[in-house]
Structures are given as structure tokens and as C-alpha cells.
């Protein structure tokens, strides 16, 4: 306990210098900005800002870059709620109920609960990193390819639960998402798969391209044909902040979301991406009336947002304690550290304690700043919703185009976005939901990689997934959840099997 307090005070001593507060603030501001702008993710921004940080001292530079990262998570939920655009895999879930809330004139409540939930989760996660960061890395070491594969299977079951309409359609969408994820160069043989001979597809489909297309653009076209639905957003603006009743509904989901998100975030294989999905599934199953979900349930925003932010924070654990980046943004942080002469790894904690604890303390400070930045901004965002739709949608369109272009500096990405927009619109017409497809897509790549690794290591024996204890338990949970998910619809009788 004494060491813990000592570490924290060292951390706050570093983070609370005038310089570092300033860098933290800049990072949070820039992060919020790029998070709000669709397409422009933290990756492109951190890459662009790297050279600017050359002249800074490493702690300040890293505090700023980390600020961009979790600032972008906050900002991303704003776009998800207001205009139905998930910039990252983790905000796909926020879209589901968040945007519905906005359409019902509860955008302020959704944004407010997202910000407050995120702050709470961020605080808990920061404490968790400080107290248990070192021992928690051991947990990650338990996870080999077989365990990850089973975890991903569990994730796919979440996607089934996520669906609000027909379960058969949801399963079809997951499969289609998995199929899309196989597009690109095969990891093992280097063969091009399903690329239609296009070189631009050889690295697969970019998440932002797919998400902007099937969520963003498809939604715009759909809104244009139903003037009634789009005008609802503008007419009813409603409350600015969540009230007592909202908190009463949301505090439990926030607690659970924080817990789930924090645990999954520690896993080095980008487990954080599962956090929001897991939390949503949990809330939907625990709710008295699950049919509210997907129609603007506050729990469906509060829980996943907390899980998202908790995961975003604990994802720093593998980076800081093992030096192994769990996702692309963290890989960039490794680059940033190396440029500043700090090679991330197990020794950072002992060799550069001020940097290590300073960063952790600054995370909490950053979360506080984000809350302070974001709460007043809600009023502004809501006013933006009053802009007539005929002006709003071209603006969304151009921001998306620029954002998508800047991810890889590629015009073909922009063309693909248009294509997936068309696909997404078609899917909407056929009554499909895009969210399960996106989850299938996100998990697909990792799942195939892990499946093949596990089978290579076990020399072709599927028993490896059952024999390894952690993997076996995860699979058992997945099967159990699937049964729980399917049961209500099976009970309803033969005629309604596929309509929940």
C-alpha cells in the first residue's frame, strides 16, 4: 500500500507540473477534435504529430500522445451518438442505442451519460493500472492462440445477442462479416484472397472504410428518403444533461461495464475491442425488458461507454509493463517512445519511474479534463443538430471523405467507402442490421489467425480448444450464452423461430 501511494505521488508530482498539464490538455483537445471528426482516427493524428514532439521531453510528449488516444475515444462516441458514425470498432455499440436516443431528443442525456460513465471507468482503470498493473500482466500470459480463439467465439455470440430483429439474419450478417475479413493477403502463404485482382485490397478492407460505408452513408441515403425520421432529431432537442432518473438507470451498467472493459483491455491481442460488446450483451440480458435495447435504452450507452474507456486505459498495461502493443495505436506509442530514446518493455517501470507513473497519473488527469471539456460542449453539439438536414448531410459527407482519404492517403479507400455505402443501403432495404456484420468483421481476422496458429501448434488437433483449461471455460461460457440467447425465440414456437 505504501509503495502504491508512493508511486501515485511520484506520478502526480510528474503529471502536475505546469508543462505536463499543458501537454495533457493539448492532447485531450486534439484527441476530442479528431475523435469527433469521422474517419480521422488517433492513428493518423499521432503519426502526424510525432515529428512535432521531437523537441519535447519524452514524458510530456507521451502524455500528449496518450491524451490524443483517449481523447479520441471520448470524441468518437459524440459522432456515434449524433450522426450514427462509428469511427472505431469500439463505438459500433454506442451507435445502436446512442443514436436512437438522439433521434428521440435525448442526445444530451446520451452524451452526458457517456462522458460521465467514461470518466468513472477511466478513474477506476487508472487505479487498477497503478495498483495491479504488474501482476495483471500475468493474466495476459495465460492467453495463447487457443484461448484467444475461444474468446473470439464468445465475442461472436455477443453479436447474436446484439441483434434486435431476426436471429437468423444476425447470424448471416456475422458470417458475411467474417467472410469480408478474409479479404486480403493470406498471412501464411502470402496469397491474395478475394481481392478481385485489386492491389488496393491486398491488405484487406479498412475498418473505417467499411463502417463509414455501411453505417454512415447508408444511413444518410435512408434518412433522405424518410423526411419524418430525420426531422425528429432537429425538432426535439430535449434535456442537456442526464437527470436523477437517468443516473438511477445507468449506474449499475457503468459499474459492470467498467469491470468487463478493464479485464478485457489487459489482454494483449486487442481484447479491448470486445469490451463494449460484452457489456451491451450483459445489459441486454440483465434488463427486465430487453426489447428496449436498440430503441434508445440508456443502459446500452452507459455500460458500453464505460467498458470502452476502461479498456482504452487498461490497454496501456501490456504496453507499459511488457512493451508489447495490443493494437495499432499502441504500436504507434511504441514508435513514439523509441523515437524519444525510451525502449518500452519490462524495465520502463524501474528505469523511468517518473515517466511510467507520470503517464498513469496523467491519464486520470486527462479523463478529468475530458469531462470538463466535454460536458459544456454537449450544448454546442446539440445546437449542431438544429442545422437543417439538407446542409448537415453534405457536411458529414465531406468530413467522411477527407477522413477516409487521410487514413491511408488513398483515393481507392474513398471509392470503397462509396461501394460499401451502396452495399449498406441494400442491406438496410433487406432488413439486415449492420452491427453484427461489423463485429464479425472485426473479430474475423484475429480469429482466423488464432485458429490457424492454434491448429499449427497442436498439429491439427481440435481438442486443443477443449483441453486447455482457460480455452475450455471460455468455450463453455460461449455455448451457454448462445443457448440463453436462442431460448426465448425457440420457446415462442415454430412460426416465430426467426423473429425475436
Amino acid at each position, binding site marked *: 500500500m505504501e509503495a502504491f501511494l508512493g508511486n501515485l505521488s511520484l506520478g502526480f508530482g510528474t503529471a502536475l507540473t505546469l508543462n505536463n498539464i499543458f501537454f495533457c490538455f493539448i492532447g485531450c483537445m*486534439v484527441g476530442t477534435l479528431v475523435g469527433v*471528426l469521422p474517419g*480521422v482516427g488517433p492513428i493518423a*493524428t499521432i503519426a*502526424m504529430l510525432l515529428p512535432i514532439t521531437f523537441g519535447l521531453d519524452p514524458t510530456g510528449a507521451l502524455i500528449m500522445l496518450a491524451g490524443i488516444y483517449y481523447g479520441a475515444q471520448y470524441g468518437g462516441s459524440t459522432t456515434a451518438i449524433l450522426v450514427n458514425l462509428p469511427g472505431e470498432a469500439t463505438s459500433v455499440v454506442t451507435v445502436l442505442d446512442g443514436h436512437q436516443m438522439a433521434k428521440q431528443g435525448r442526445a444530451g442525456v446520451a452524451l452526458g451519460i457517456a462522458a460521465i460513465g467514461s470518466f468513472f471507468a477511466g478513474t477506476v482503470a487508472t487505479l487498477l493500472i497503478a495498483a495491479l498493473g504488474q501482476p495483471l500482466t500475468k493474466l495476459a500470459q495465460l492467453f495463447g492462440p487457443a484461448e484467444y480463439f475461444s474468446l473470439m467465439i464468445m465475442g461472436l455470440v455477443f453479436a447474436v445477442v446484439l441483434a434486435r430483429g431476426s436471429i*437468423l*439474419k444476425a447470424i*448471416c450478417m456475422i*458470417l*458475411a462479416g*467474417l*467472410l469480408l475479413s*478474409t479479404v486480403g493477403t*493470406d498471412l501464411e*502463404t502470402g*496469397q491474395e*484472397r*478475394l481481392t478481385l485482382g485489386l492491389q488496393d485490397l491486398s491488405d484487406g478492407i479498412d475498418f473505417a472504410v467499411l463502417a463509414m460505408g455501411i453505417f454512415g*452513408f447508408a444511413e*444518410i*441515403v*435512408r434518412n*433522405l*428518403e424518410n423526411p419524418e425520421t430525420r426531422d425528429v432529431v432537429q425538432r426535439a432537442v430535449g434535456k442537456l444533461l442526464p437527470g436523477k432518473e437517468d443516473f438511477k438507470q445507468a449506474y449499475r451498467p457503468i459499474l459492470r461495464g467498467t469491470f468487463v472493459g478493464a479485464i478485457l483491455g489487459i489482454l494483449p491481442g486487442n481484447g479491448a475491442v470486445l469490451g463494449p460488446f460484452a457489456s451491451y450483451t450483459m445489459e441486454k440480458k440483465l434488463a427486465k425488458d430487453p426489447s428496449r435495447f436498440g430503441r434508445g435504452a440508456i443502459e446500452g450507452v452507459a455500460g458500453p461507454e464505460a467498458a470502452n474507456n476502461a479498456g482504452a486505459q487498461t490497454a496501456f498495461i501490456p504496453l507499459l509493463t511488457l512493451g508489447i502493443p495490443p493494437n495499432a495505436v499502441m504500436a504507434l506509442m511504441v514508435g513514439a517512445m523509441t523515437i524519444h530514446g525510451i525502449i518500452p518493455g519490462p524495465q520502463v517501470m524501474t528505469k523511468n519511474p517518473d515517466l511510467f507513473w507520470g503517464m498513469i497519473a496523467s491519464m486520470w488527469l486527462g479523463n478529468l479534463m475530458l469531462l470538463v471539456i466535454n460536458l459544456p460542449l454537449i450544448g454546442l453539439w446539440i445546437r449542431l443538430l438544429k442545422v437543417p438536414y*439538407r*446542409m448537415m*448531410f*453534405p*457536411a458529414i*459527407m*465531406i*468530413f*467522411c*471523405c*477527407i477522413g477516409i*482519404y*487521410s487514413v491511408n*492517403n488513398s*483515393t481507392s479507400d*474513398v*471509392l470503397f467507402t*462509396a461501394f460499401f*455505402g*451502396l452495399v449498406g*443501403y*441494400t442491406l438496410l*432495404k*433487406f*432488413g439486415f442490421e449492420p452491427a453484427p456484420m461489423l463485429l464479425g468483421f472485426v473479430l474475423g481476422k484475429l480469429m*482466423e489467425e488464432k*485458429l*490457424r496458429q492454434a*491448429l499449427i501448434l497442436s*498439429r*491439427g488437433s*481440435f481438442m486443443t480448444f477443449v483441453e486447455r483449461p482457460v480455452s475450455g471455460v471460455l468455450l463453455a461460457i460461449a455455448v451457454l450464452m448462445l443457448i440463453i440467447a436462442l431460448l426465448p425465440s425457440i420457446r415462442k414456437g415454430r*412460426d*416465430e423461430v*426467426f*423473429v425475436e
Partner: protein
Amino acid sequence: MSEQTSPDDRKPSFGIRSGQDFGAGLFLIALGIFAFWQAQTLGRGTLNAMGAGMLPQSLAVMVAVGGLGLVITSLLVDGPRLERWSLRGAFFIFGGIVLFALTIRPLGLVVSGPLAMFFGSMASDEFRWKESAIFAVILTTICILLFKVLLRLPIPVVGSLLEPILPF
């Protein structure tokens, strides 16, 4: 969703009781067949050493089977009909994005921004050309300030074709 369609506006044709599910099923079957055809040349390998084709091919089959399931349901269970398609919206929105992609590098954001926005604006039945044109120019200016000046993204403001003509 089924409660939205009242029984009397559903005309049973060829035994199809849900046009939406029927179309959805056909769409998935087509997707599955297309993907399988594209992946057929890839080696399937063994479980021990899975080839590049194993998963794409199996998933393609599963997607097609799922589609078949939907087609069958559409014949057995009443469901929503296919909605009307909005061709105007799709054409101008996706056309605008394509225009942006084609012009961003040769002409740069100064031209492709307003162009794409103006074209896209026509998707709305409330289109007013003067307003859209002015708004497109203003917003492009904001975008240049935001993305180029503030965030320093390497997006071409003046394209390669215009560069020699302009003095800067």
C-alpha cells in the same frame, strides 16, 4: 418489424410471404456463390496446415446456406415486404463520393471539396442550389483550415494539375 406491415397491403405472389426476406436470401446466396467462385483457386490445405482457401470457402458456403434459410423462411412465414428504393439519394450521395475520390489528387481539396458537396446536396428534395454552393465553399475553407492547417494531414489542397498554374 413485422407489425409495421398490415396484412391487406401484402399481396401474396408466387407464394412469397416476405419480399424482404426473399430478397435478402437471394442477396446472400449470390454473395456466397461469388465469394466461393473467387476463392476456388486457393488451396484448402489440411487442419494441421490450413490453406489460404479453407476459411473463405467454408464461410462462403455458410453465407449461401444462411441465404437459403432466409428464402425458405420467406415462403413459410409472413414478414415485411421490400421497401421502395430511393435512387435519387443513392445516385447523388455515392456519385459525390466518387467525384471526390477522382478529383482530390489532380485538382485538390479546393475543387473537389465544393464539387463533391454540391453534387451530393442534390440528393435532397429540399435542394437549393445557391445555398448549397455558398455552403460548399464555406465548409471547404473550414476543412482546409481544420485538416491542413490545424491537424497537418497531408491532404492535397491544390492538386497536381493546378499546381503549375497557381502562383503558390
